[in-house]
């Protein structure tokens, strides 16, 4: 037909917006610079702020005395584009990064933005079109990007590691690193170490064999892969059935960014639960390296040591959450980890030796861990069709959202969830891309609460706690201004006195918090930024708020300029 009106060619959606299309060039972020990230607190260069995972900033313009004057500087609305993938899209779980006056942040549904951190103006955007039907246990989410070597790195829902030009947002390279047909996906923020980009797998609920990978930062070529479930004959394989297939679907995925010690050249990676989550009958043994911290040689990808927090897990107690690195007064190199199982562990990070273990939640019924680390299970789903209730529930006493460590107070601030669950064992056969839990699970709809717990990791003593009606499901950040910033599921963003826990300020953001706040400085003004947006795996960590307000906004606060 020749009489049709010529509609032309489809154009990029962003061309019909006020996005500027380019960010100012920033100084290069390389390995040396990230190692010294604490010396440039105006920036937030890497996922945890610094390699040690402390989420501590030396900025002190915002203090205990003036924080009551904190007001929104701007709000960035992520919004939806096209046929978004559902209600679980509304979870903004990222940590923003700030480099030399440019903010880079990822959102749900494959989005990445460069934003002017003084005004909230959108400089460029990128959206990765992942399939709508990717197998995802816990929402259409992304936890952040890595910035370095002139690029922005993101791991996509369909397990592609992509590199974007930091100035334009244009794709530089794209490496497919996971099998979506096998239930693999990507949600973790990558980490730049040396000339590599390190990122871990997701998909434990679908029986993926977990792994951590390192890639050439310039080309995207894979340097090494470290599987966190050993094959027969490999170290640790004796903890899996030697005549079975369990190891092939073992889980132990690495869906949270590792911390790193440049002196020891070790990555500290938390690993996920074994699969199936609740049916231990098909995987007798301790099931290494599930529910562990593994120390991985960054040069080779080999596991140097491991510590398993919940051997033969029957409660879905992933240990993917962060490992915070700090040093004891005597110089001993330590590592702190608050596990889903409700216990707080301090390890020697040079060799994995247990230094201290103590509970950090009020209610633990699944079992007991003695002071020397001996694990005694007590309540677990071991009979087909018989419901079993236990605390903490499968979201744990603390889930993936991060605690922080303030070297001035010597305290670690833990966002605590007090919520239990009932699991009923229901054995099922394994099939790729189909959820592989081995139970029906119902998390308690009521009888829950939460708090921020300030703990001295050298003694195990809780110095203070800030109580809340709801479990704490978001990361916090602590500053040299003597503050701890924490978001709540009911929408408040609060500032606490780091020494006493007294609430000094709050702002209602209109949607719950399930992300990681940061602080930074531009042109001499300190800001605190926090993504909000209630969604993701709410049914797993706080189903009592499944109907709460949802949204996708990034708030940025500062003191008034006058």
């Amino acid at each position: 037909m020749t009489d049709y009106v010529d509609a032309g060619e489809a154009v990029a959606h962003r061309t019909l917006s006020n996005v500027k299309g380019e960010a100012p060039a920033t100084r290069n972020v390389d390995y040396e610079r990230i190692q010294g990230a604490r010396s440039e607190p105006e920036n937030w260069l890497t996922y945890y702020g610094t390699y040690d995972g402390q989420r501590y900033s030396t900025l002190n313009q915002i203090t205990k005395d003036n924080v009551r004057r904190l007001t929104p500087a701007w709000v960035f609305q992520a919004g939806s584009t096209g046929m978004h993938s559902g209600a679980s899209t509304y979870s903004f779980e990222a940590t923003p990064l700030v480099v030399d006056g440019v903010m880079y942040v990822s959102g749900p549904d494959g989005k990445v933005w460069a934003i002017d951190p003084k005004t909230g103006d959108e400089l460029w955007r990128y959206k990765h079109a992942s399939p709508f039907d990717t197998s995802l246990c816990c929402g259409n989410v992304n936890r952040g990007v890595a910035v370095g070597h002139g690029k922005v790195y993101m791991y996509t829902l369909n397990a592609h590691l992509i590199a974007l030009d930091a100035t334009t947002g244009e794709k530089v390279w794209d490496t497919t690193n996971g099998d979506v047909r096998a239930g693999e996906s990507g949600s973790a923020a990558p980490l730049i170490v040396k000339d590599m980009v390190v990122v871990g797998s997701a998909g434990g609920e679908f029986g993926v064999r977990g792994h951590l990978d390192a890639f050439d930062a310039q080309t995207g070529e894979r340097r090494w892969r470290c599987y966190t479930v050993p094959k027969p004959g490999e170290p640790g394989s004796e903890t899996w059935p030697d005549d079975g297939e369990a190891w092939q679907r073992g889980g132990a995925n690495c869906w949270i960014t590792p911390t790193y010690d440049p002196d020891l050249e070790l990555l500290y990676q938390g690993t996920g639960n074994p699969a199936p989550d609740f049916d231990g009958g098909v995987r007798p043994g301790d099931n290494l390296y599930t529910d562990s911290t593994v120390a991985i040689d960054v040069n080779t990808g080999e596991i140097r040591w491991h510590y398993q927090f919940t051997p033969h897990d029957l409660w879905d107690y992933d240990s993917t959450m962060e490992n915070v690195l700090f040093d004891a007064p005597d110089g001993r190199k330590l590592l702190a980890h608050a596990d889903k199982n409700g216990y707080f562990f301090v390890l020697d990070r040079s060799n994995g030796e247990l230094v201290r273990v103590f509970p950090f939640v009020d209610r633990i019924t699944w079992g007991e861990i003695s002071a020397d680390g001996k694990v005694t299970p007590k309540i677990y789903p071991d009979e087909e069709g018989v419901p079993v209730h236990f605390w903490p529930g499968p979201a744990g006493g603390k889930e993936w959202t991060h605690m922080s460590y303030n070297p001035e107070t010597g305290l670690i601030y833990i966002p605590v969830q007090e919520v239990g669950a009932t699991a009923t064992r229901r054995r099922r056969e394994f099939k790729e891309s189909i959820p592989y839990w081995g139970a029906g699970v119902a998390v308690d709809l009521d009888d829950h609460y939460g708090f921020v717990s300030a703990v001295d990791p050298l003694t195990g003593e809780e110095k203070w706690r800030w109580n809340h009606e709801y479990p704490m499901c978001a990361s916090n950040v602590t500053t040299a201004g003597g503050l701890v910033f924490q978001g709540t599921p009911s929408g408040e963003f609060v500032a606490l006195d780091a020494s006493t826990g007294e609430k000094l300020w709050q702002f209602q953001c209109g949607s719950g918090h399930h992300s990681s706040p940061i602080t930074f400085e531009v042109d001499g003004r300190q800001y605190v930024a926090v993504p909000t947006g209630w969604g993701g795996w709410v049914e797993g960590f706080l189903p009592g708020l499944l109907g709460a307000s949802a949204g996708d906004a990034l708030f940025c606060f500062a003191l008034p300029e006058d």
Partner: protein
Amino acid sequence: MTATADDRAQELHAAGLDGQNRTTLGRMLGTGNVGYAEEGEDGVMRATVRIPEDQLIFDPSIIVFPHGGDIELTLINDDKNTHCALLPHNGDPKIIWLVNHSKGTARLNLDGPGAYWYGSTTGNDEGRGLTAALVMGGEVPDSAKLDRPAQPRP
């Protein structure tokens, strides 16, 4: 009465669920035809989608591609009303405005495998039925697969 897969189209028609302003005000989503893209010698996969008069549907509503990669869609609006298409694409979604009796193209890149939705984001076209899917078949590269024996699939 329960419809089987084989008589689904007939059952939808009998129930008044496959057209505009019958039992419902709009068409039930995803009830259109299935089509297949053709891969050219240049590696680009091509297909044509039409919007028929008064149906508010992309036809075919589901296009199956052999694998992920570069796509060239021809979009034709045979309706007597204006619509558009906001299409998934790696980098940024692409949009094309389709006035009455118009024809245009969209060049897209999508990773396989899996299904991608698109729709006409004007008025409430999406609610009345103007949504459709681009379905990429195939497998990921061997380098992206897990080191384990082949596993059972549903």
